[in-house]
């Protein structure tokens, strides 16, 4: 943990302590999308803010050592493919595209309402990684080093 980059020591320590809580909150909002307000989009942006706090508190080089940006790009690009795969499940079961074919449990259970739960997880992960990688790309360009292509 070098002292020259990122913010002060207090901010770094508090970020390390509070980061699991932010991830837990984001997953809670995603998983309970069919029982309470929120859902995939709100929980996804909480996950993006968790990644972003790592980048802002520790500076870009340290964050690049911790996170594997290539794997994040690949996971984020497979989001729409998984959504289409879930939709084709409905087609394969003999109905229309995107028909709700998984079992629906009782009301107010966590494992209820068909494929809304997997879709929420797919959307949450995809939106979170997309937004974080957009900010990562926007801060890559450094004006002091001059014009690159």
């Amino acid at each position, binding site marked *: 943990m070098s002292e020259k980059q990122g913010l002060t020591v207090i901010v770094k320590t508090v970020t390390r302590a509070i980061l699991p809580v932010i991830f837990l909150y984001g997953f809670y909002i995603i998983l309970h999308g069919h029982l*309470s*307000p929120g859902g995939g*989009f709100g929980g996804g942006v909480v996950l993006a803010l968790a990644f972003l706090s790592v980048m802002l508190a520790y500076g870009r080089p340290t964050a690049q050592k911790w996170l594997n940006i290539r794997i994040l790009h690949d996971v984020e690009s497979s989001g729409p493919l998984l959504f289409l795969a879930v939709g084709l499940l409905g087609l394969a079961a003999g109905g229309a595209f995107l028909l709700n074919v998984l079992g629906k449990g009782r*009301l*107010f259970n966590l494992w209820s309402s068909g494929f809304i739960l997997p879709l929420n997880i797919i959307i949450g992960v995809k*939106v979170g990684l*997309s*937004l974080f990688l*957009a900010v990562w*790309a*926007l801060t890559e*360009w450094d004006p002091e080093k001059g*014009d690159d292509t």
Partner: protein
Amino acid sequence: MIIYLLCFALFLVGLYELMTKRDLIKIILASGIMGYAVNLMLVLFGYRRGAVYPILEKGREAAAMVDPLPQALVLTSIVIELGTTAMLAALAIRLFNKYKTFDITKIRRLRG
């Protein structure tokens, strides 16, 4: 009806600033204002007096609720507007890279 007219006035304020400002950053902010006004107008169309939010709870499964359709549309719209704002910011950075200014009257030629 006063509420609908005030919301439309917010949209027109954003439109006026979009058309008469010379600074690219102010143009991006004005398009954000127009997006807020449109989303608010759609949710205003769906409000019902004396109704509650559209979530079923254990003791309250048959109450009067507000219209859930505009809320679903506006949810999609908010997410897409963030993607558009990110793309506009990237365009503005590349334009500054080439022309060293944010003034739209000086950005005249289409250079690669």
